[in-house]
């Protein structure tokens, strides 16, 4: 085989390997991903046994601890549908009522279970508690 041809063959082999790997990556990312849903969407769409990423705010007055289990409800940002959860695992420091959280949940029977250690708290306005309107451009 002459060198030029050899190089072309190598290039084709390398490129097709890259394409195969990239396809695998893309395929698995779509199948392994958990859809991000709001509580009202979750109520409509949830199928038992599948994992969902639930985003919303912690409902006021819903947080109770029972031993290692933390019970709280997640509601839509605008209020309304609230989903009660039981969760075990690490609770991030910023977790409190009214804060935005992201938690992976699974529907088991009629109840929603938070996946172990999946709770993330988001500070909607980072590192400040003042209303956001105040720091625009004034």
């Amino acid at each position, binding site marked *: 085989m002459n*060198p030029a041809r050899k*190089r072309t063959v190598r290039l084709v082999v390398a490129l097709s390997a890259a394409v195969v*790997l*990239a396809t695998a*990556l*893309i395929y*698995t*990312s*779509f199948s*392994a*991903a*958990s*859809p*991000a849903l709001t509580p009202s969407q979750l109520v409509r769409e949830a199928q038992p046994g599948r994992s969902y*990423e639930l*985003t919303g705010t912690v409902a006021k007055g819903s947080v109770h*601890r029972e*031993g*290692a289990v933390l019970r709280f409800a997640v509601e839509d940002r605008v209020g309304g549908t609230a989903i009660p959860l039981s969760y*075990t*695992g*690490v*609770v*991030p*420091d*910023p977790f*409190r009522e009214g804060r935005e959280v*992201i938690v*992976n949940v699974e529907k088991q029977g009629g109840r929603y279970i938070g996946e172990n*250690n*999946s709770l*993330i*708290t*988001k*500070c*909607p*306005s*980072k*590192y*400040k*508690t*003042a209303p*956001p309107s*105040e*720091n625009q*451009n*004034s």
Partner: protein
Amino acid sequence: MAGLGFACLVLALVVCAYGIGASLYGVRSGRVEFSESGRRSVYALAGILTVAMVVLEIAFLGNDFAFNTVADTSSRTTPALYRAAAVWSSQEGSLLLWAWLMSLWSSLALFLTRKRMRDVAAYATAILLGFGGFFVGLMVFYANPFATTHPVPPEGVGLDPLLRFPTMMIHPPMLYSGYTLCTIPFAFGMGALLARRVDADWIKAIRRFAFAAWLFLGIGILLGALWSYSELGWGGYWGWDAVENASLMPWLTGTAFLHSLMIQEKRGMLKVWNVSLVLATGTLAIMGTFLVRSGVLNSIHAFGGHTLGVPFVCLIALMIAGSIYLVVSRRDMLRSQHRLDSLISRESIFLANNLVLVGLCFVIFWGTYFPLISEAFTGQEASVGPPWFDRYTVPLALILVLLSGIGPVIAWRRATLANARRNFLIPLGAALGMLLVLEIGGVTQKPLASAMFCCAAFVFGSIGQEFFRGTRARRAMAGERAPLALLALVRRNRRRYGGYIVHIGIAVLFVGVAASSSFQHASQLGLSPGQSTRVGAYEIRYVRPTATVTPKYDAAHTGSTLNLGAVLDVTKHGRHVATLNPSEGFYASEEASQGTVGSLIGGQPVSHVALDVGLTRNVWTAIEPDIEAPALKRIVTDGNSTLPPEEAVVAIAYLARAYLQHPPQAQFNFLVSPLVMWIWIGGLIVFGGALIALWPAPSTVRRRVAARSRARAVRGLARA
């Protein structure tokens, strides 16, 4: 003061606009004095932004709550050290930090290249000032750090307690130095393409800056991991969070570039690849900065409530379009001077390392931006979790560590069988020896971790062999003693041996990662005083509760009002190991609705993790005391209804005593992680190796000095 600060910003914007015009006109018309003037405007920008930074620092240290940023992120109760660091905890302040660091590093880069490559440097000046102008423009038009309010609030909100951690002082400046340093190779790469001078000169000029960018980003990433491990109450150092990933991506492409540039220097190959890597690194650095600010992705780190997304997307689109256009239009100039001779050569190992690094970057990119990609394709936002990342990154990391052992010892151009036998016998022996040790020790149940240990042993073998051979050769040649010969060896070839030390550090770091993630024992449970639990080989007993009250305006330590914790006794096989005191700090909030007592402890609680650090394992403990227990809650509600604000702290003292007398069950989080210390030790080794490689070689300094004195002598002779 605020007026002075804002005036600085406006002036900075004018300087940027002038500098861009001057350097472009200078290089286009060939009038050097204009490009000189353009370069000087970068120095001027650095000076002006330094003044702005000082103004803001003074405002923070002096509690000038007329400044919105000060009122929002600082307070009198925030200790002075953290007030100084609070400057960059707000969106506005961090933009200023970014622009300021960029102007400083650009000034250094342009100063060092002032006598070389005038045309490339002039274009680079314009591009760097473009970045400067962009960030200053953001501050002037969207997020002014010097905005003020009237009337002046009596007290600020305070720095988020989570950020009251010593590395907060250095983590953001390090990370931002890394990001801003990434823009320097980008600017020079663009400059070289624009000036059509794509030889190895521009690469030589920015090599050090690319390396420094890599180093600072690496330090920033590791400090972030350390913060996560020792301040956030979950005990992990890496969570594949979007913002973590954003800083890792330019680091990966930067690593790839640092390797492939050696091939361009030695063999004149891979020019397109190198310039693309540099441009990608710069673009990824800006994307990383953007990700934190836009709120497009869910992250615990993201700044929210701001709309800097559109300008950033425009900038990034411009960077990508410009990069692609320039690389495509200059492709004829970027032809390789040589071809790859053999697949078994150092060039191809470097190429493989590059492909793995870029592959890793692609995986992380895809996973990080997957929520956006998924929404674009399926209309449904979805995200991938850490298991998905691990599935791809773990094997790639294994290959990477293995390659870092092969690269240094394989021959350039074409490796022969004899060469392979000579160089790979010892490393392979080390890897097999490690496998044997693991087999005998009975720790092979985690195949991926075992594979990582063997790869690391391979690296230690191959690099150890290089050091040994080099030292032996010097001893034979110069007759020096072994330690002296080793020192001389490193000193004469700083870049090479510094690089080897970096490889060792990376291998050590990955050993720490593999061991601590695969063989960790974790336990989460509620305990009452006197009860105990087993975690791995350790017995942890909750001895007694602790409680400390800090008066509101005592700015000691981190400024919490109340600390509830526990004394834990850690034993192993009945022998005392350590006494640990994890606690949780409760901070004051500004919400009046929580009542006079409630607001003293109503802020965000923060875990104070207690660690027993060891070379073989860390015992990590955190506590979550039940402050909502009925007896404690009653004290707060009673106090709220009876106590005026100035006496509210009495109720807190009462609450602390009640907690000590009748402690409710507390939640604990225990981790025993083997070898986790080695992640930080590996990081330090990398740092040391990188410093050795970055330090100017004494020979070149001496040569420069010698040349200067020779020139002086010649001039003297001519005059005589």
